[in-house]
């Protein structure tokens, strides 16, 4: 990995991991930089000991081996000069434990025939949530959707295009859907059944992100979300 940027979701294991990173760098065979999705002590300490720039809170699921990256460890920024970013919103609609998925028509510009959640391109300086609300109305005809949660973007890669997906979760009062031209079919499914459908890239991660943020019912007590694991 010498001279290359090492991207992985997060570190795991014992403290010796920090020392290994230190040893690699000392011998000049360490990575040029590290990119993580989630921040974690072992890697952060190792990178600090080794003097390796580290950028975290970046969804590494959007990166491909061989990508060119510009990492600035001081400012904590990361650029992909060869990739075009396209911002989209995805509104996950929930009704009594089921979520809405729609099949994209042959008239849309991308991912024709694949299953997706309600989504749309962000235009100009538009506020993502406003766009999400508008897409719900246009694509499903549903009114009275109640905003529940927004989560940090998921990166879905399609060759030289990076879809920066902003996930939103809404609860809706009913299941009546009136599709517009963008979609040809709809279904209310259990989130666990998503695997059975041919979906747009990373839809499962987008759904997981939207649903995970909604579980914290009491924002005042931060630790209360950590429920005991069921046996």
């Amino acid at each position, binding site marked *: 990995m010498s001279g290359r940027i090492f991207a992985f979701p997060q570190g795991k294991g014992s403290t*010796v991991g920090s020392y290994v990173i230190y040893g690699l760098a000392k011998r000049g065979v360490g990575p040029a930089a590290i990119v993580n999705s989630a921040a974690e002590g072992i890697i952060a300490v190792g990178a600090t*000991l080794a003097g390796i720039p580290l950028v975290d809170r970046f969804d590494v699921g959007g990166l491909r081996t061989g990508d060119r990256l510009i990492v600035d460890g001081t400012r904590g920024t990361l650029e992909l000069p060869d990739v075009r970013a396209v911002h989209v919103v995805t509104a996950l609609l929930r009704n009594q434990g089921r979520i809405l998925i729609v099949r994209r028509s042959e008239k849309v510009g991308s991912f024709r025939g694949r299953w997706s959640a309600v989504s749309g391109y962000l235009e100009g300086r538009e506020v993502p949530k406003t766009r999400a609300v508008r897409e719900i109305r246009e694509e499903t005809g549903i009114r009275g959707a109640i905003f529940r949660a927004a989560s940090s973007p998921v990166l879905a890669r399609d060759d030289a295009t990076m879809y920066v997906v902003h996930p939103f979760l809404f609860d809706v009062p009913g299941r009546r859907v009136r599709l517009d031209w963008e979609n040809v079919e709809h279904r209310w499914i259990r989130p666990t059944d998503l695997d059975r459908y041919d979906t747009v890239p990373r839809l499962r991660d987008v759904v997981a992100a939207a649903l995970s943020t909604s579980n914290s019912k009491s924002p005042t007590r931060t630790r209360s979300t950590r429920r005991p694991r069921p046996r």
Partner: protein
Amino acid sequence: MRLTKSQRHLLEGGSDAQRQAMRILLALAKLSDADRLIPVTGAHVSGASYKMIGDPGLEFLEDAARDARVVIPTTVNPLGTDLQQWQDLGIPPEFAAKQERIAAAYERMGVRPTYSCTPYHLGTRPALGEHIAWAESNAVCFANSVLGARTNRESGPSALAAAIVGATPEYGLHLDEGRRPTVVVNAPVRPRDLDFSLIGLVAGERVGDGLPFFRGFRGSESDLKWLGAALASSGSCGMFLLEGVTPEARRASRRGLPSISITRKDLDEARWQHTDGTDADLIALGSPQLSAEELRDIARRVERSPPRIPVWVFTSRAVREANPEAVATIERVGGRVLADTCLEVTLLEHRFGTVATPSGKGAHYLPTLCKQKVMRSWTRRRGRASDCPVEFSRSRREREARSAPT
């Protein structure tokens, strides 16, 4: 991030080691959204066993020892073997030599050569509300829960950085809100001796990184040591509360918390889950290291019923030297009292296949760290006195039955 003038000075004009220590603390502060570093009165560093940290750790520590010096009282975790007995144990000379270099590096940094995972047995007992920076999960759990001191679960390097700077990022268990319970654990199981380790193992698995509020039993300081050590091994808890016993339990609010129960059946299941051998060739006592009372208790027992297989007892050097009679008793029946090392970080696998231990922490780590079978067997309960003829503390009922006139 707010830094004091002296912290800023260390970061910008300190020695290499001071600058590096500051950078580690700041990186961790950033991860946990801490906005300042607070002074700590003491540190306990982990990562001293060559078996655990290997050559990369040795290299780092020797580099650091060139100019790093601790500025607060600092103790350190057990080594990978007893450096005064390694030849008798069949430890490879290369292992012992590297282990000695690790110890020497820590001593050059000014770390007290305690080589113990139980600093709280050695006079290091921070007071209620005192901020410290401890690594070693059982010690962290004991300090937070039983003593009411405040520390996060530090790693080796982060505790060392805190020792060099004299401060630690303020987040988590240093703050009142980080010390609130997250789940109520009812365990009306009338625990005795080994049950405390089992409660810890079961609760840790279910609570994960939460903060359990236990109800339904009581225990001595020694009982809570075994409970906490197991809890911090199977879960990643840094603290627990026990109703009517631990100092901060009374003020803790349980309103609106989820609650779970632990039954006798759960404890039995946990015991079998951690047993995957039948014929142990070593009985290992310790993990965490035994206190003076526990060591003397073991000596009395092995004298009464000498074990059929070797017994290794792990304790600190200080406790070993203060109790020569107990040590002599154990050695007379073929046992060994090892100091400066402990069960889960010591080199065993070169000699033993299956180890019997009553320690929940030992049972949790042995299979993962040593690739060995672990067996926990409880003599009386299973009626197989040959397997593990020593238990930790016999229950009061049994003691009374024994001393009662017939």
